[in-house]
């Protein structure tokens, strides 16, 4: 039966509903504001600290704006020439590991997506992902001895490139599996019928469709490898140095040179930020998993 409320009552009801929604919206905005402050403040403090003098960073009363600007900090961090090569080392390791993770992860992911039974099924794929759940520190020492017995030892690019696969490969495999699953198998079949051989069909049809996803995976792998500290600290140090183990070396006697540490950190932030900006377009599409639509 139709509601018997008259028009006036209906209008008040509508007005009340609108009022309630407006209140909710304001509350949400206030919450957003706090959240933004909470996340952005550390970045801000890092940036201004990079421009402070060493003395100013050690004041008991912290300053939120440099009393005096010291852009020389950014030159100071490279006083030691090996510091620059640390950035290069980090870059080599992160990039090498990313490429390897993508290659192996794509192959494995494809197998899990297309031949789940032969590849060991969902459980196998999940087991791989679960490798990311144990505390890394648990394998720190065993891994050190393991790599120490390899021809290239621990203190080399290749050791870290391979070691980081422990963390990045399961992630890459799992995500690539999801992306490949999103590409209908029929597209590849259509390509076979067009006359493309399987590998060519993969390159021509499947790869372009998972590319956005692949780039997101690359970003995630690269950033992990770029920022890794725990293993790098133990494994490398003389022949090879990553930037993460260089940062704690900015000290003067017992005094921590916060300004230099922050300046170097700021420089180390540049590559991932640039990468992110360049690849952002693909990343957003990849992360939303909407690889094939329409």
């Amino acid at each position, binding site marked *: *039966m*139709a*509601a018997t*409320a*008259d*028009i006036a009552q*209906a*209008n008040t*009801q*509508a007005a009340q*509903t609108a009022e309630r929604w407006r209140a909710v919206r304001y509350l949400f905005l206030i919450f957003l504001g706090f959240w933004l402050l909470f996340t952005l403040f550390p970045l801000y403090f890092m940036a201004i600290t990079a421009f402070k003098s060493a003395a100013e960073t050690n004041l008991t009363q912290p300053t939120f704006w440099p009393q005096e600007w010291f852009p020389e900090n950014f030159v100071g961090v490279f006083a030691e020439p090996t510091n620059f090569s640390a950035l290069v080392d980090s870059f080599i390791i992160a990039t090498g590991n990313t490429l390897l993770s993508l290659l192996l992860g794509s192959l494995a992911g494809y197998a899990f997506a297309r031949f789940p039974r032969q590849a060991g099924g969902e459980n196998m794929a999940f087991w791989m992902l679960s490798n990311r759940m144990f505390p890394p520190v648990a394998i720190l020492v065993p891994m050190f001895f393991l790599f120490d017995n390899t021809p290239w030892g621990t203190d080399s690019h290749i050791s870290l490139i391979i070691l980081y696969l422990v963390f990045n490969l399961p992630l890459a495999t799992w995500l690539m599996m999801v992306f490949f699953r999103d590409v209908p198998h029929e597209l590849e079949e259509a390509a076979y019928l067009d006359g493309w051989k399987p590998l060519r069909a993969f390159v021509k049809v499947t790869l372009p469709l998972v590319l956005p996803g692949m780039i997101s995976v690359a970003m995630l792998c690269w950033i992990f490898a770029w920022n890794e500290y725990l293993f790098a600290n133990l494994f490398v140090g003389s022949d090879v140095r990553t930037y993460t183990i260089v940062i704690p070396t900015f000290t003067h006697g017992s005094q921590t040179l916060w300004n230099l540490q922050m300046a170097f950190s700021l420089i180390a932030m540049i590559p991932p930020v640039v990468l992110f900006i360049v690849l952002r377009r693909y990343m957003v599409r990849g992360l939303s998993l909407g690889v094939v639509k329409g």
Partner: protein
Amino acid sequence: MARVTLADVNKIYGTGTRAVHAVQDLDLTINDGEFVALLGPSGCGKTSTLRMIVGLESVTSGRIRFDGQDVTHLEPQQRNVAMAFETYALYPNFTIEENLTFPLEVQGVPPKERRRRAHQVAEMLRITPVLKEKPPGLSGGQQQRVSLGRALIREPAVFILDEVMSHLDAHLKFQMLFDLKRLHRDLKRTMIYVTHDQVEALALADRIAVMSNAKLQQVGGRAALYNRPANAFVADFIGEPPTNFFTARPLQENGSLTMQVDNSTLRFQLSSEAQAAVNATGGERFIVGLRPQNLTLDPNRGDPNRGRLKAAIAINEYLGERSILTLESGKARFRALVPPETAAGQRDIIDLFYDPTRVMIFDAETEDLIV
């Protein structure tokens, strides 16, 4: 029960240069207990209209009333409408009975009453035997009936069905048509049926509202849409196979007016009423429409005034209960519906006959019906 009135309703999505006028100046009244179909091709505005009636979409301008009460700005839950969707949207882990009673549980109806009503609805939809089963075990047709039942059980004032049959295959669809027809006969509830399939609309609805390009083209019963379509669009959209159209110019001959088809030897005789109407416009170009059903191979159905066409068969499609001939004469191509016994083959030249009063004339510019 309720009478639904849409008064001058407009829906515009977006603003400025990117604004899309989805529904334009729609005036439509659906009477209490009436079964009305909203029919049109995809993108014609029928879904927007439906969503405004339900309250899922805001109205840009105009009023929607149920039994005179203005519901334009009410929330969907306050409108007492129920809707069944194209996808069945059943809860797979609930039994059919639980699926049916779910809307009542939300309303706080006591369990005993819920059971009673579920059984009543199930009886009506012939799903009583499967009440204890779960959706995955049911056929597509049964699932669709459960989904209808879930909408019905709330005893809504207005019952809306959105393309409910598009996922069913032909045989099930056919069955479902009769089920729905029975259902409406038993319930006498106001029903609005949205579809792009003219066969469904014509079969089910008391009246059909044909929409195209955001505008209402014509509202009427089957006979009106079939025999007096408001314009060429309606004539084309209603009927299967679609109406044959020819561009033609009037020709005076022995004191009577005929229509000479462009690039073809076809010439149509007109009824005296049509001759007068064409003369009155004084136009030079017209669109002639004739339904494939109104062309016959039978020369003497007791009518001396029958018109005759000569054409060559391009395709003879045997369809079991009937055959469709695709015919050619010059550049003109048209179809005729003939009995399945017709043996004439490709490139045979045959005579076809028609009743001049069935010939429709449209304005070549506006495509509106002249006669």
